[in-house]
Protein backbone atom coordinates (compact mmCIF):
# COMPACT_ATOMS: atom_id res chain seq x y z
CA UNK A 1 0.00 0.00 0.00
CA UNK A 2 1.12 3.51 -0.74
CA UNK A 3 0.52 5.68 2.29
CA UNK A 4 2.40 8.77 1.12
CA UNK A 5 -0.78 10.82 0.84
CA UNK A 6 -1.51 10.38 4.57
CA UNK A 7 -0.89 13.59 6.45
CA UNK A 8 -2.14 15.20 9.64
CA UNK A 9 -3.74 14.10 12.87
CA UNK A 10 -7.42 13.30 13.39
CA UNK A 11 -9.05 13.34 16.83
CA UNK A 12 -12.40 11.58 17.16
CA UNK A 13 -14.41 13.67 19.62
CA UNK A 14 -16.60 11.74 22.04
CA UNK A 15 -19.78 13.34 23.30
CA UNK A 16 -22.97 12.58 25.13
CA UNK A 17 -26.05 14.77 24.66
CA UNK A 18 -23.98 17.52 23.10
CA UNK A 19 -21.28 17.68 25.78
CA UNK A 20 -17.82 16.47 24.85
CA UNK A 21 -15.73 14.29 27.11
CA UNK A 22 -12.78 16.15 28.56
CA UNK A 23 -10.41 13.57 27.16
CA UNK A 24 -11.30 14.65 23.62
CA UNK A 25 -10.16 18.21 24.27
CA UNK A 26 -7.12 16.96 26.16
CA UNK A 27 -6.14 14.92 23.11
CA UNK A 28 -6.69 17.90 20.85
CA UNK A 29 -4.33 19.90 23.09
CA UNK A 30 -1.62 17.26 22.97
CA UNK A 31 -2.14 16.64 19.26
CA UNK A 32 -1.59 20.31 18.50
CA UNK A 33 1.95 19.91 19.80
CA UNK A 34 2.46 16.82 17.64
CA UNK A 35 0.90 18.45 14.57
CA UNK A 36 3.30 21.38 14.91
CA UNK A 37 6.24 18.98 15.05
CA UNK A 38 4.93 17.24 11.93
CA UNK A 39 4.01 20.51 10.26
CA UNK A 40 0.68 18.93 9.41
CA UNK A 41 -2.99 19.83 9.89
CA UNK A 42 -4.91 18.98 13.05
CA UNK A 43 -8.38 17.63 12.35
CA UNK A 44 -11.32 16.64 14.51
CA UNK A 45 -14.36 14.52 13.84
CA UNK A 46 -17.62 15.25 15.64
CA UNK A 47 -20.45 12.72 15.33
CA UNK A 48 -23.91 12.94 16.90
CA UNK A 49 -27.20 14.77 16.75
CA UNK A 50 -27.40 18.54 17.25
CA UNK A 51 -23.69 18.68 17.91
CA UNK A 52 -22.73 21.57 15.68
CA UNK A 53 -21.58 23.71 18.65
CA UNK A 54 -18.97 21.04 19.34
CA UNK A 55 -17.50 21.50 15.87
CA UNK A 56 -17.04 25.17 16.68
CA UNK A 57 -15.56 24.31 20.08
CA UNK A 58 -13.10 21.89 18.47
CA UNK A 59 -11.76 24.76 16.35
CA UNK A 60 -11.48 26.98 19.40
CA UNK A 61 -9.54 24.22 21.11
CA UNK A 62 -6.99 23.71 18.38
CA UNK A 63 -8.48 21.97 15.32
CA UNK A 64 -7.75 23.40 11.87
CA UNK A 65 -10.51 21.44 10.20
CA UNK A 66 -13.53 19.68 11.67
CA UNK A 67 -15.55 16.95 10.01
CA UNK A 68 -19.10 17.15 11.30
CA UNK A 69 -21.61 14.37 10.89
CA UNK A 70 -24.90 15.44 12.42
CA UNK A 71 -27.97 13.22 12.05
CA UNK A 72 -30.88 12.01 14.13
CA UNK A 73 -29.83 8.36 13.74
CA UNK A 74 -26.48 9.23 15.28
CA UNK A 75 -27.90 10.58 18.52
CA UNK A 76 -26.69 7.58 20.52
CA UNK A 77 -23.36 5.91 20.04
CA UNK A 78 -23.66 2.61 18.19
CA UNK A 79 -20.64 0.80 16.83
CA UNK A 80 -21.71 0.20 13.24
CA UNK A 81 -22.99 3.62 12.18
CA UNK A 82 -20.24 5.47 14.05
CA UNK A 83 -17.48 3.31 12.63
CA UNK A 84 -18.84 3.78 9.10
CA UNK A 85 -18.64 7.54 9.51
CA UNK A 86 -15.12 7.28 10.89
CA UNK A 87 -13.96 5.02 8.06
CA UNK A 88 -15.45 7.37 5.50
CA UNK A 89 -13.72 10.39 7.03
CA UNK A 90 -10.40 8.55 7.35
CA UNK A 91 -10.60 7.64 3.70
CA UNK A 92 -11.37 11.21 2.72
CA UNK A 93 -9.03 13.04 5.11
CA UNK A 94 -6.17 10.51 5.02
CA UNK A 95 -4.70 11.35 8.44
CA UNK A 96 -1.37 9.76 9.34
CA UNK A 97 -2.48 9.52 13.00
CA UNK A 98 -5.93 8.90 14.51
CA UNK A 99 -6.45 9.33 18.26
CA UNK A 100 -9.40 8.86 20.58
CA UNK A 101 -10.04 8.61 24.28
CA UNK A 102 -9.46 5.25 25.96
CA UNK A 103 -12.99 5.37 27.34
CA UNK A 104 -15.44 2.50 27.06
CA UNK A 105 -16.86 4.02 23.90
CA UNK A 106 -13.45 4.99 22.53
CA UNK A 107 -12.12 1.48 22.93
CA UNK A 108 -15.26 -0.03 21.41
CA UNK A 109 -15.03 2.22 18.35
CA UNK A 110 -11.26 2.19 17.89
CA UNK A 111 -11.14 -1.62 18.00
CA UNK A 112 -13.73 -1.86 15.23
CA UNK A 113 -12.15 0.79 13.01
CA UNK A 114 -8.59 -0.52 13.28
CA UNK A 115 -9.76 -3.99 12.27
CA UNK A 116 -11.67 -2.67 9.26
CA UNK A 117 -8.84 -0.52 7.94
CA UNK A 118 -6.73 -2.61 8.89
CA UNK A 119 -4.03 -0.95 10.95
CA UNK A 120 -2.23 -1.14 14.29
CA UNK A 121 -3.91 0.23 17.38
CA UNK A 122 -2.09 1.02 20.61
CA UNK A 123 -4.31 0.96 23.67
CA UNK A 124 -4.55 3.25 26.64
CA UNK A 125 -1.55 5.51 26.06
CA UNK A 126 -0.21 7.90 28.67
CA UNK A 127 2.56 9.47 26.53
CA UNK A 128 2.50 10.46 22.88
CA UNK A 129 5.22 11.79 20.65
CA UNK A 130 6.38 11.71 17.03
CA UNK A 131 9.89 11.10 15.71
CA UNK A 132 11.80 12.42 12.69
CA UNK A 133 10.38 9.64 10.51
CA UNK A 134 6.86 10.81 11.35
CA UNK A 135 6.31 7.69 13.45
CA UNK A 136 3.91 7.92 16.36
CA UNK A 137 5.63 6.91 19.61
CA UNK A 138 2.68 5.66 21.62
CA UNK A 139 3.60 4.71 25.18
CA UNK A 140 1.40 2.82 27.56
CA UNK A 141 1.61 1.27 31.01
CA UNK A 142 2.09 -2.48 31.08
CA UNK A 143 2.11 -5.22 33.67
CA UNK A 144 -0.15 -3.57 36.22
CA UNK A 145 1.46 -0.18 35.69
CA UNK A 146 4.90 -1.45 36.63
CA UNK A 147 6.44 -0.71 33.24
CA UNK A 148 5.91 1.55 30.27
CA UNK A 149 6.15 0.27 26.71
CA UNK A 150 6.54 2.36 23.56
CA UNK A 151 4.66 0.88 20.63
CA UNK A 152 5.14 1.74 16.97
CA UNK A 153 3.16 1.04 13.83
CA UNK A 154 5.64 1.30 10.96
CA UNK A 155 3.98 -0.32 7.96
CA UNK A 156 0.39 0.88 8.10
CA UNK A 157 -1.49 4.17 8.06
CA UNK A 158 -3.14 5.73 9.86
CA UNK A 159 -1.31 4.95 13.08
CA UNK A 160 -3.99 4.62 15.73
CA UNK A 161 -4.02 4.95 19.51
CA UNK A 162 -6.43 5.43 22.34
CA UNK A 163 -5.23 7.57 25.25
CA UNK A 164 -6.21 7.86 28.86
CA UNK A 165 -8.26 10.65 30.31
CA UNK A 166 -6.57 13.12 32.62
CA UNK A 167 -3.06 12.76 31.22
CA UNK A 168 -2.85 15.58 28.71
CA UNK A 169 -3.79 19.23 29.02
CA UNK A 170 -6.65 20.74 27.04
CA UNK A 171 -6.07 24.15 25.47
CA UNK A 172 -8.29 26.94 26.73
CA UNK A 173 -11.01 27.97 24.28
CA UNK A 174 -9.83 30.64 21.89
CA UNK A 175 -12.84 32.22 20.15
CA UNK A 176 -10.57 34.06 17.72
CA UNK A 177 -9.28 30.84 16.12
CA UNK A 178 -10.69 30.04 12.72
CA UNK A 179 -11.02 26.77 10.91
CA UNK A 180 -13.01 24.91 8.34
CA UNK A 181 -16.09 22.77 9.01
CA UNK A 182 -16.72 19.95 6.55
CA UNK A 183 -20.17 18.34 6.67
CA UNK A 184 -20.40 14.59 6.21
CA UNK A 185 -23.59 12.63 5.59
CA UNK A 186 -24.28 9.55 7.74
CA UNK A 187 -22.93 6.60 5.86
CA UNK A 188 -25.75 4.18 6.51
CA UNK A 189 -29.17 2.89 5.85
CA UNK A 190 -31.02 2.89 9.21
CA UNK A 191 -32.57 -0.52 8.43
CA UNK A 192 -29.16 -2.14 8.43
CA UNK A 193 -28.56 -1.21 12.04
CA UNK A 194 -29.92 -3.84 14.42
CA UNK A 195 -28.66 -2.26 17.63
CA UNK A 196 -31.13 -0.08 19.53
CA UNK A 197 -30.29 1.99 22.58
CA UNK A 198 -33.44 1.67 24.69
CA UNK A 199 -32.49 3.75 27.67
CA UNK A 200 -29.66 5.45 29.51
CA UNK A 201 -29.71 5.13 33.28
CA UNK A 202 -27.54 7.90 34.56
CA UNK A 203 -28.49 7.22 38.17
CA UNK A 204 -27.00 3.75 37.90
CA UNK A 205 -23.69 5.26 36.97
CA UNK A 206 -21.18 4.42 39.60
CA UNK A 207 -18.37 6.59 40.76
CA UNK A 208 -16.27 7.63 37.82
CA UNK A 209 -12.75 7.64 39.23
CA UNK A 210 -11.06 7.68 35.83
CA UNK A 211 -12.50 11.04 34.88
CA UNK A 212 -12.50 12.58 38.34
CA UNK A 213 -10.39 15.70 38.77
CA UNK A 214 -10.45 15.55 42.55
CA UNK A 215 -10.45 12.36 44.64
CA UNK A 216 -10.69 12.15 48.41
CA UNK A 217 -9.76 8.59 49.34
CA UNK A 218 -10.13 6.78 52.64
CA UNK A 219 -8.49 3.69 54.10
CA UNK A 220 -8.38 1.53 57.17
CA UNK A 221 -7.89 4.62 59.33
CA UNK A 222 -11.57 5.46 58.87
CA UNK A 223 -12.46 2.44 60.97
CA UNK A 224 -15.88 1.82 59.41
CA UNK A 225 -18.35 2.82 56.73
CA UNK A 226 -19.86 5.88 58.46
CA UNK A 227 -16.78 8.16 58.28
CA UNK A 228 -16.89 7.96 54.50
CA UNK A 229 -19.63 10.58 54.84
CA UNK A 230 -16.95 12.98 56.10
CA UNK A 231 -14.91 12.31 52.98
CA UNK A 232 -17.98 12.78 50.80
CA UNK A 233 -18.55 16.23 52.32
CA UNK A 234 -14.96 17.22 51.59
CA UNK A 235 -15.15 15.77 48.07
CA UNK A 236 -18.38 17.69 47.42
CA UNK A 237 -16.80 20.92 48.60
CA UNK A 238 -13.87 20.39 46.22
CA UNK A 239 -15.96 19.14 43.30
CA UNK A 240 -14.62 15.61 43.55
CA UNK A 241 -15.49 12.02 44.31
CA UNK A 242 -14.63 9.49 46.99
CA UNK A 243 -11.98 6.79 46.53
CA UNK A 244 -10.77 4.04 48.84
CA UNK A 245 -7.97 1.63 49.64
CA UNK A 246 -8.46 -2.07 49.20
CA UNK A 247 -8.69 -2.61 52.93
CA UNK A 248 -11.70 -0.31 53.12
CA UNK A 249 -13.30 -2.06 50.16
CA UNK A 250 -12.67 -5.56 51.45
CA UNK A 251 -14.04 -4.64 54.85
CA UNK A 252 -17.25 -3.81 53.00
CA UNK A 253 -17.22 -0.14 54.01
CA UNK A 254 -17.53 1.03 50.42
CA UNK A 255 -18.17 -0.44 46.98
CA UNK A 256 -15.33 -1.87 44.86
CA UNK A 257 -15.86 0.77 42.19
CA UNK A 258 -14.19 3.21 44.57
CA UNK A 259 -10.97 1.21 44.91
CA UNK A 260 -7.80 2.91 43.79
CA UNK A 261 -4.69 0.88 43.05
CA UNK A 262 -3.28 -2.13 41.36
CA UNK A 263 -6.45 -4.20 41.56
CA UNK A 264 -8.73 -1.20 41.46
CA UNK A 265 -8.64 1.86 39.22
CA UNK A 266 -5.57 3.82 38.19
CA UNK A 267 -6.33 7.46 38.66
CA UNK A 268 -4.68 10.68 37.62
CA UNK A 269 -6.70 13.47 39.18
CA UNK A 270 -5.45 17.00 39.62
CA UNK A 271 -5.82 16.62 43.40
CA UNK A 272 -5.71 13.42 45.43
CA UNK A 273 -6.28 13.53 49.18
CA UNK A 274 -5.34 10.30 50.98
CA UNK A 275 -7.00 10.02 54.36
CA UNK A 276 -6.04 7.23 56.79
CA UNK A 277 -4.22 5.39 54.01
CA UNK A 278 -0.72 4.11 54.74
CA UNK A 279 0.55 4.17 51.14
CA UNK A 280 1.23 0.51 50.31
CA UNK A 281 2.94 0.09 46.97
CA UNK A 282 -0.20 -1.47 45.47
CA UNK A 283 -2.08 1.69 46.39
CA UNK A 284 0.68 4.03 45.22
CA UNK A 285 0.86 2.59 41.68
CA UNK A 286 -2.75 3.59 41.24
CA UNK A 287 -2.47 7.22 42.34
CA UNK A 288 1.11 8.46 42.31
CA UNK A 289 0.63 10.27 39.00
CA UNK A 290 -1.90 12.63 40.49
CA UNK A 291 -0.82 16.25 40.01
CA UNK A 292 -1.05 17.26 43.67
CA UNK A 293 -1.22 14.77 46.53
CA UNK A 294 -2.23 15.60 50.09
CA UNK A 295 -1.82 13.00 52.85
CA UNK A 296 -3.59 13.04 56.19
CA UNK A 297 -2.34 10.37 58.59
CA UNK A 298 -1.64 10.09 62.28
CA UNK A 299 1.57 8.16 61.68
CA UNK A 300 4.42 10.52 60.65
CA UNK A 301 6.32 7.57 59.16
CA UNK A 302 3.50 6.41 56.86
CA UNK A 303 4.96 5.86 53.37
CA UNK A 304 2.14 7.88 51.81
CA UNK A 305 3.98 11.03 52.94
CA UNK A 306 6.86 10.18 50.60
CA UNK A 307 4.71 10.77 47.53
CA UNK A 308 2.65 13.62 48.96
CA UNK A 309 3.19 17.28 48.12
CA UNK A 310 1.54 18.32 51.36
CA UNK A 311 1.21 16.29 54.54
CA UNK A 312 -0.65 16.71 57.79
CA UNK A 313 0.11 14.46 60.74
CA UNK A 314 -2.97 14.15 62.90
CA UNK A 315 -6.34 12.62 63.55
CA UNK A 316 -8.50 12.51 60.45
CA UNK A 317 -11.67 12.86 62.53
CA UNK A 318 -10.56 16.35 63.54
CA UNK A 319 -8.81 17.41 60.36
CA UNK A 320 -11.26 16.40 57.65
CA UNK A 321 -14.34 18.26 59.00
CA UNK A 322 -12.24 21.35 59.68
CA UNK A 323 -10.78 21.21 56.19
CA UNK A 324 -14.24 20.90 54.64
CA UNK A 325 -15.42 23.96 56.53
CA UNK A 326 -12.43 26.01 55.47
CA UNK A 327 -12.78 25.01 51.82
CA UNK A 328 -16.48 25.88 51.82
CA UNK A 329 -15.69 29.28 53.31
CA UNK A 330 -12.84 29.88 50.89
CA UNK A 331 -14.95 29.01 47.88
CA UNK A 332 -17.89 31.02 49.19
CA UNK A 333 -20.19 28.04 48.71
Amino acid at each position, binding site marked *: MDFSAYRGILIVVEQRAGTAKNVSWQLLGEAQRLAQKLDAPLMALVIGHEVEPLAREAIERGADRVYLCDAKELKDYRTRPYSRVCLHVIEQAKPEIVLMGAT*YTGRDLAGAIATHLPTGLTADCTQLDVDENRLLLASRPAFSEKMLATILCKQYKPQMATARAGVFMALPRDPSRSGEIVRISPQMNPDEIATE*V*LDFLREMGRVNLEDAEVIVAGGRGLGGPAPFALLKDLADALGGVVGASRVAVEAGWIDHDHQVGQTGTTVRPKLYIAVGISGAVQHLVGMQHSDVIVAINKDPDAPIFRVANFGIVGDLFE*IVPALTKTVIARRGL
Partner: protein
Amino acid sequence: MHIVVCIKQVPDSREIRIDPVTNTLVRQGVPAIVNFYDLHGLEEALRLKDEMGARVTVVSMGPPSAEKALKQCIAMGADEAVLVSDRGFAGADTLATSYVVALTIKKVAQEMEPVDMVFCGKQTLDGDTGQVGPGVACRLDYDQLTYVEKVLDVDPVARTVTVHRHLEDGVEVVRTKLPVLMTALTNLNKPRRASLPGVLRAAKYKPIVWTTNDFPDIDRAKIGLRGSPTIVSKTWVPEPRTVNTEMIEAPDVRETVAVLVEKLWNTELPARLGW
Protein backbone atom coordinates in the same frame (compact mmCIF):
# COMPACT_ATOMS: atom_id res chain seq x y z
CA MET B 1 -28.25 -22.01 21.01
CA HIS B 2 -24.50 -22.33 20.53
CA ILE B 3 -22.33 -20.05 22.64
CA VAL B 4 -18.59 -19.65 22.10
CA VAL B 5 -16.41 -18.30 24.89
CA CYS B 6 -12.97 -16.89 24.04
CA ILE B 7 -10.35 -17.33 26.70
CA LYS B 8 -6.69 -16.45 27.07
CA GLN B 9 -4.20 -17.98 29.43
CA VAL B 10 -2.21 -15.15 31.00
CA PRO B 11 0.53 -14.72 33.57
CA ASP B 12 -1.05 -13.31 36.70
CA SER B 13 0.50 -9.90 36.12
CA ARG B 14 -0.48 -8.78 39.59
CA GLU B 15 2.24 -11.13 40.80
CA ILE B 16 4.93 -9.93 38.37
CA ARG B 17 7.67 -7.95 40.09
CA ILE B 18 10.37 -5.71 38.75
CA ASP B 19 13.91 -6.72 39.64
CA PRO B 20 15.19 -3.58 41.34
CA VAL B 21 18.75 -4.18 40.12
CA THR B 22 18.20 -5.04 36.45
CA ASN B 23 14.88 -3.21 36.00
CA THR B 24 13.47 -6.22 34.20
CA LEU B 25 10.37 -8.29 34.78
CA VAL B 26 10.64 -11.24 37.11
CA ARG B 27 8.32 -13.81 35.55
CA GLN B 28 9.63 -16.79 37.45
CA GLY B 29 7.07 -18.38 39.69
CA VAL B 30 4.30 -16.22 38.24
CA PRO B 31 1.28 -18.51 37.89
CA ALA B 32 -0.52 -18.88 34.54
CA ILE B 33 -4.26 -18.43 34.99
CA VAL B 34 -7.36 -18.09 32.88
CA ASN B 35 -7.74 -14.35 32.36
CA PHE B 36 -10.31 -13.69 35.06
CA TYR B 37 -12.63 -11.54 32.94
CA ASP B 38 -13.02 -14.55 30.63
CA LEU B 39 -14.36 -16.66 33.50
CA HIS B 40 -17.22 -14.19 33.77
CA GLY B 41 -17.96 -14.71 30.07
CA LEU B 42 -17.90 -18.45 30.62
CA GLU B 43 -20.16 -18.22 33.66
CA GLU B 44 -22.72 -16.21 31.69
CA ALA B 45 -22.66 -18.81 28.91
CA LEU B 46 -23.14 -21.60 31.47
CA ARG B 47 -25.94 -19.68 33.15
CA LEU B 48 -27.77 -19.35 29.81
CA LYS B 49 -27.13 -23.04 29.20
CA ASP B 50 -28.73 -23.89 32.57
CA GLU B 51 -31.68 -21.63 31.86
CA MET B 52 -32.51 -22.25 28.25
CA GLY B 53 -30.29 -25.05 27.06
CA ALA B 54 -27.21 -24.28 25.03
CA ARG B 55 -24.02 -25.77 23.80
CA VAL B 56 -20.93 -24.03 25.18
CA THR B 57 -17.64 -24.18 23.28
CA VAL B 58 -14.48 -22.57 24.61
CA VAL B 59 -11.75 -21.43 22.22
CA SER B 60 -8.26 -20.14 22.82
CA MET B 61 -5.26 -19.24 20.70
CA GLY B 62 -2.13 -19.96 22.63
CA PRO B 63 0.82 -22.25 23.33
CA PRO B 64 0.24 -25.97 24.07
CA SER B 65 0.37 -25.17 27.81
CA ALA B 66 -2.94 -23.31 27.42
CA GLU B 67 -4.58 -26.75 27.39
CA LYS B 68 -4.62 -26.51 31.15
CA ALA B 69 -6.70 -23.32 31.03
CA LEU B 70 -9.17 -24.99 28.67
CA LYS B 71 -9.50 -28.00 30.94
CA GLN B 72 -10.39 -25.66 33.78
CA CYS B 73 -13.27 -24.39 31.63
CA ILE B 74 -14.40 -27.98 30.94
CA ALA B 75 -14.35 -28.63 34.68
CA MET B 76 -16.65 -25.65 35.15
CA GLY B 77 -19.11 -27.07 32.63
CA ALA B 78 -18.12 -26.16 29.07
CA ASP B 79 -19.03 -28.85 26.53
CA GLU B 80 -16.08 -28.63 24.19
CA ALA B 81 -12.73 -26.83 24.04
CA VAL B 82 -10.63 -25.86 21.04
CA LEU B 83 -7.00 -24.83 21.22
CA VAL B 84 -5.51 -23.19 18.15
CA SER B 85 -1.81 -23.51 18.56
CA ASP B 86 1.01 -23.05 16.10
CA ARG B 87 4.43 -21.46 16.16
CA GLY B 88 3.20 -19.30 13.31
CA PHE B 89 0.76 -17.55 15.67
CA ALA B 90 3.48 -16.38 18.04
CA GLY B 91 3.98 -12.66 18.49
CA ALA B 92 0.44 -11.76 17.44
CA ASP B 93 -0.89 -8.34 18.34
CA THR B 94 -4.62 -7.72 18.62
CA LEU B 95 -5.15 -7.48 14.86
CA ALA B 96 -3.50 -10.85 14.18
CA THR B 97 -5.15 -12.40 17.24
CA SER B 98 -8.64 -11.36 16.22
CA TYR B 99 -7.99 -12.77 12.74
CA VAL B 100 -7.15 -16.23 14.07
CA VAL B 101 -9.84 -16.24 16.77
CA ALA B 102 -12.46 -15.24 14.18
CA LEU B 103 -11.31 -17.98 11.78
CA THR B 104 -11.56 -20.45 14.65
CA ILE B 105 -15.11 -19.40 15.47
CA LYS B 106 -16.09 -19.71 11.81
CA LYS B 107 -14.68 -23.22 11.72
CA VAL B 108 -16.40 -24.11 15.00
CA ALA B 109 -19.67 -22.85 13.51
CA GLN B 110 -19.16 -24.92 10.36
CA GLU B 111 -18.06 -28.14 11.96
CA MET B 112 -20.15 -28.18 15.12
CA GLU B 113 -23.22 -25.95 14.94
CA PRO B 114 -23.92 -22.36 13.85
CA VAL B 115 -22.90 -19.85 16.53
CA ASP B 116 -25.42 -17.49 18.14
CA MET B 117 -23.34 -15.75 20.75
CA VAL B 118 -19.69 -15.13 21.53
CA PHE B 119 -18.36 -14.00 24.88
CA CYS B 120 -14.99 -12.35 25.41
CA GLY B 121 -13.55 -10.79 28.53
CA LYS B 122 -13.47 -7.02 28.95
CA GLN B 123 -9.69 -7.18 28.58
CA THR B 124 -6.76 -9.34 29.60
CA LEU B 125 -4.42 -9.03 32.54
CA ASP B 126 -1.32 -8.91 30.33
CA GLY B 127 -1.98 -7.11 27.05
CA ASP B 128 -4.86 -5.27 28.63
CA THR B 129 -6.11 -3.67 25.41
CA GLY B 130 -9.73 -4.80 25.21
CA GLN B 131 -9.34 -4.76 21.43
CA VAL B 132 -9.66 -8.43 20.55
CA GLY B 133 -13.43 -8.55 21.21
CA PRO B 134 -14.31 -5.68 18.84
CA GLY B 135 -11.81 -7.10 16.32
CA VAL B 136 -13.44 -10.53 16.32
CA ALA B 137 -16.97 -9.06 16.08
CA CYS B 138 -15.88 -6.94 13.15
CA ARG B 139 -14.35 -9.90 11.30
CA LEU B 140 -17.41 -12.09 11.89
CA ASP B 141 -19.72 -9.18 11.03
CA TYR B 142 -21.58 -9.67 14.32
CA ASP B 143 -22.97 -6.80 16.32
CA GLN B 144 -20.86 -6.09 19.38
CA LEU B 145 -22.00 -5.24 22.88
CA THR B 146 -18.93 -4.36 24.92
CA TYR B 147 -18.68 -3.89 28.71
CA VAL B 148 -21.80 -5.89 29.51
CA GLU B 149 -22.63 -6.06 33.21
CA LYS B 150 -26.04 -7.67 32.94
CA VAL B 151 -27.80 -9.82 30.35
CA LEU B 152 -31.43 -8.86 30.83
CA ASP B 153 -33.03 -11.04 28.22
CA VAL B 154 -32.26 -13.48 25.45
CA ASP B 155 -35.19 -14.12 23.14
CA PRO B 156 -34.47 -17.22 21.05
CA VAL B 157 -37.60 -16.71 18.91
CA ALA B 158 -37.14 -13.06 18.01
CA ARG B 159 -33.39 -13.77 18.15
CA THR B 160 -32.58 -10.71 20.21
CA VAL B 161 -30.50 -10.02 23.29
CA THR B 162 -30.96 -7.10 25.69
CA VAL B 163 -28.20 -6.04 28.06
CA HIS B 164 -26.92 -3.38 30.42
CA ARG B 165 -23.67 -1.85 29.19
CA HIS B 166 -21.57 -0.13 31.80
CA LEU B 167 -20.18 3.26 30.78
CA GLU B 168 -18.28 5.89 32.76
CA ASP B 169 -21.34 8.04 33.35
CA GLY B 170 -24.19 5.57 33.58
CA VAL B 171 -25.69 2.37 32.29
CA GLU B 172 -26.98 1.93 28.78
CA VAL B 173 -29.83 -0.48 28.02
CA VAL B 174 -29.23 -1.91 24.56
CA ARG B 175 -30.89 -4.51 22.42
CA THR B 176 -29.55 -6.13 19.31
CA LYS B 177 -30.00 -9.13 17.06
CA LEU B 178 -28.20 -12.43 17.23
CA PRO B 179 -25.53 -13.41 16.43
CA VAL B 180 -23.78 -11.10 18.83
CA LEU B 181 -20.40 -10.73 20.51
CA MET B 182 -20.39 -9.51 24.10
CA THR B 183 -17.49 -8.57 26.36
CA ALA B 184 -17.90 -9.33 30.04
CA LEU B 185 -17.29 -7.17 33.10
CA THR B 186 -16.60 -8.76 36.48
CA ASN B 187 -19.90 -7.61 37.95
CA LEU B 188 -21.78 -9.61 35.31
CA ASN B 189 -21.87 -12.64 37.63
CA LYS B 190 -19.89 -14.77 40.05
CA PRO B 191 -18.08 -17.62 38.29
CA ARG B 192 -18.99 -21.04 39.66
CA ARG B 193 -16.55 -23.52 41.06
CA ALA B 194 -15.82 -26.67 39.11
CA SER B 195 -18.23 -29.48 39.93
CA LEU B 196 -16.99 -32.95 40.85
CA PRO B 197 -18.31 -34.55 37.62
CA GLY B 198 -16.76 -31.61 35.77
CA VAL B 199 -13.38 -32.21 37.36
CA LEU B 200 -13.58 -35.90 36.51
CA ARG B 201 -14.50 -35.14 32.92
CA ALA B 202 -11.73 -32.53 32.61
CA ALA B 203 -9.13 -34.97 33.89
CA LYS B 204 -9.70 -37.23 30.90
CA TYR B 205 -10.64 -34.53 28.42
CA LYS B 206 -8.38 -33.70 25.45
CA PRO B 207 -9.12 -30.34 23.82
CA ILE B 208 -9.43 -30.27 20.04
CA VAL B 209 -6.17 -28.83 18.72
CA TRP B 210 -5.97 -27.01 15.39
CA THR B 211 -2.83 -25.69 13.71
CA THR B 212 -2.45 -23.51 10.62
CA ASN B 213 -2.79 -26.68 8.52
CA ASP B 214 -6.37 -27.06 9.72
CA PHE B 215 -7.23 -23.72 8.09
CA PRO B 216 -6.66 -24.26 4.36
CA ASP B 217 -7.66 -20.69 3.47
CA ILE B 218 -5.61 -18.96 6.14
CA ASP B 219 -3.62 -15.96 4.92
CA ARG B 220 -0.18 -16.43 6.42
CA ALA B 221 0.61 -12.75 5.99
CA LYS B 222 -2.08 -11.99 8.56
CA ILE B 223 -0.93 -14.18 11.43
CA GLY B 224 1.70 -14.00 14.15
CA LEU B 225 4.43 -11.42 14.14
CA ARG B 226 4.16 -10.85 10.39
CA GLY B 227 0.48 -10.04 10.62
CA SER B 228 0.95 -7.64 13.52
CA PRO B 229 1.23 -3.96 12.69
CA THR B 230 2.20 -2.92 16.22
CA ILE B 231 5.79 -3.30 17.37
CA VAL B 232 6.98 -2.92 20.95
CA SER B 233 10.06 -0.76 20.48
CA LYS B 234 11.13 -0.39 24.09
CA THR B 235 10.02 -0.90 27.66
CA TRP B 236 11.21 0.88 30.74
CA VAL B 237 10.41 1.24 34.41
CA PRO B 238 9.07 4.70 35.13
CA GLU B 239 10.85 6.79 37.71
CA PRO B 240 9.06 6.75 41.02
CA ARG B 241 7.46 10.02 41.98
CA THR B 242 9.93 12.23 43.77
CA VAL B 243 8.57 15.18 45.65
CA ASN B 244 9.68 17.46 48.41
CA THR B 245 6.92 16.83 50.85
CA GLU B 246 5.87 19.91 52.72
CA MET B 247 4.64 18.92 56.17
CA ILE B 248 2.12 21.36 57.55
CA GLU B 249 2.38 21.98 61.24
CA ALA B 250 0.50 24.65 63.10
CA PRO B 251 -0.52 25.07 66.73
CA ASP B 252 -4.05 23.81 66.19
CA VAL B 253 -6.22 22.01 63.69
CA ARG B 254 -8.04 25.11 62.49
CA GLU B 255 -4.81 26.83 61.61
CA THR B 256 -3.30 23.71 60.07
CA VAL B 257 -6.14 23.35 57.61
CA ALA B 258 -6.10 27.08 56.91
CA VAL B 259 -2.43 26.84 55.94
CA LEU B 260 -3.15 23.83 53.73
CA VAL B 261 -6.01 25.61 51.97
CA GLU B 262 -3.82 28.66 51.39
CA LYS B 263 -1.10 26.47 49.89
CA LEU B 264 -3.56 24.67 47.65
CA TRP B 265 -4.94 28.00 46.45
CA ASN B 266 -1.40 29.05 45.55
CA THR B 267 -1.09 26.19 43.07
CA GLU B 268 -2.63 25.94 39.61
CA LEU B 269 -5.52 23.99 41.09
CA PRO B 270 -8.12 26.78 41.48
CA ALA B 271 -7.58 27.89 37.88
CA ARG B 272 -7.65 24.37 36.50
CA LEU B 273 -10.59 23.21 38.57
CA GLY B 274 -12.66 26.34 38.40
CA TRP B 275 -12.80 26.74 42.21
